């Protein structure tokens, strides 16, 4: 264990530019995936959560099922769509961070939709009654709902970030794990493990968890304040 920690410290501060480059790529990918899947998923989830309409139950079940979409299947679908001979091949996105983000958005949006739908669903009926009693406008009602759910929505965003940063199946297939370009922390760990260098693999893992901690600590504090 000591050796792992020493190796991790060495990786971070020993002038290993490659690791910093990998960290940068990882953060770039994860933050973009989190942002896009939150911006798409949370409003949609809240809409589904507070409205009643035909087919709503089915829609929720579909999103719940998609929460279990295997990452490598999401990767395969995106690979087939975006490879040069595929329908979106013209965009020339294969083996780029952008296509990794697309695969992750496909993977994570069902999670953000489902979780924010259940957050809204729990608060909405009571709030709706109150709002009607007070004669509030719909805009005000939605604002009130967002305020009530704020803490949970931060959790949703954090969940999206966690899923994104930890994911390996999709990003290795569409990203190709190319050094200095699409190698992220999880694919780097996989590569080191395949090479049999378990200490280095574990050291990269330690760095990955530190990174996750660095994002989660302030976000969690914010969430506590919002409650």
């Amino acid at each position, binding site marked *: 264990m000591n050796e792992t920690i020493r190796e991790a410290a060495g990786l971070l501060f020993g002038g290993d*530019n*490659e690791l910093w*480059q990998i960290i940068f790529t990882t*953060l*770039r990918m994860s*933050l*973009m995936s*989190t*942002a*896009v899947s*939150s*911006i798409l998923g949370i409003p949609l989830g809240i809409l589904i959560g507070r409205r009643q309409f035909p087919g709503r139950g089915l829609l929720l079940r579909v999103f719940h099922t998609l929460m279990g979409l295997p990452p490598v299947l999401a990767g395969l679908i995106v*690979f087939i769509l975006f*490879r*040069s*001979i*595929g329908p979106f*091949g*013209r965009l*020339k996105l*294969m*083996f*780029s*961070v*952008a296509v990794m983000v697309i695969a992750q958005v496909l993977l994570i949006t069902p999670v953000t939709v489902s979780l924010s739908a259940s957050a809204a669903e729990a608060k909405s009926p009571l709030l709706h009654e109150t709002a009607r009693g007070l004669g509030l406008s719909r805009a005000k009602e939605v*604002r009130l709902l*967002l*305020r009530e759910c*704020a803490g949970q*929505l*931060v959790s949703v*965003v954090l969940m999206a970030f966690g899923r994104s940063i930890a994911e390996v199946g999709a990003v290795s297939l569409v990203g*190709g*794990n*190319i*050094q*200095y*370009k699409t190698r992220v922390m999880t694919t780097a760990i996989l590569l080191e*493990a*395949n*090479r*049999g*260098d378990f200490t280095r693999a574990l050291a990269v893992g330690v760095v990955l968890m530190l990174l996750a901690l660095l994002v989660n600590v302030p*976000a969690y504090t*914010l969430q506590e*304040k*919002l409650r």
Partner: protein
Amino acid sequence: MKKFISLLLVFALVFAFAACAGKTEDPSTEPAASDGTSEPVSEAEPSASEVPSPENPVIRLATTTSVNDSGLLPYLLPAFEAKTGYKVEVASAGTGIAIGYAKSGDADLLLVHSKKQEEAFIEEGYASTERLSFMYNYFVIVGPEADPAGIKDLASAADCFTAISKVDTGFVSRGDNSGTHNKETGIWETAGIDPTAESWYQSVGSGMGDTLIKTNEMSAYTLTDKATFLSMKDKLPNLVILKEEADDMKNTYSLLGVDPKGAGFKGAEITVNTEGANALIEWMLSDEAADLIAKYGVEQYGEPLFFLLEK
């Protein structure tokens, strides 16, 4: 209301982060990050002003794990990049998926080692060149030192496989349609054995390094390229080379260019950096590369890991 505003702030922050990060997504600026880490490049730095800057500087090479994980490409490519100004992006996986990338239009050239699959690639109309075979090494059979199947003194790989099939020590197969896996399947065919349903036959479906680690854990037999085995030897205490250099175990590496107008693509619009691919092929077949290849591994392992085919 305050809570709502702070929530908005979080979103804005996350989004701003992403947006900033998005702006830097210009692949042409990235190679700079690699220069500091590869020594041959820095050696060539004084003459940096003379390095040509090709119009389309990125070459996409799809290759097998054995040439990348054994360290050969990280050792060779910086010399090529420093000389020509190209930047080679290596996607390394088994020969199966490497060829899959090329057939998807996402590679400019291939460096692989599976004659059958290479010939199929040409026949299906994807290749711009012939099979440019230029180097080889030997597959070896590794296993526990005790050698329960007694393969050490057998004449051919097929004989060894027959002996392995008669004991229950176990055989680990790549099972990933890679060059090594195809070689292995071919040897089973020659031996007249179908091992796939046998309990001692483990198909693990992964790369060479991972397969060796699993074989080491199980103290079983496997077929591997010698380069990967030697480069990982210190992590494989339970395995030794038991059989090498039989005639049916030669492992030939070839280069293949991708033809964007090839019949295999059925008219799909793909772009291939033909100029870059040709430059890399020309360099790989040059005396300069030959020299480097012949020297590779001698210092570290006491013997070369790859040999050049007679021209």
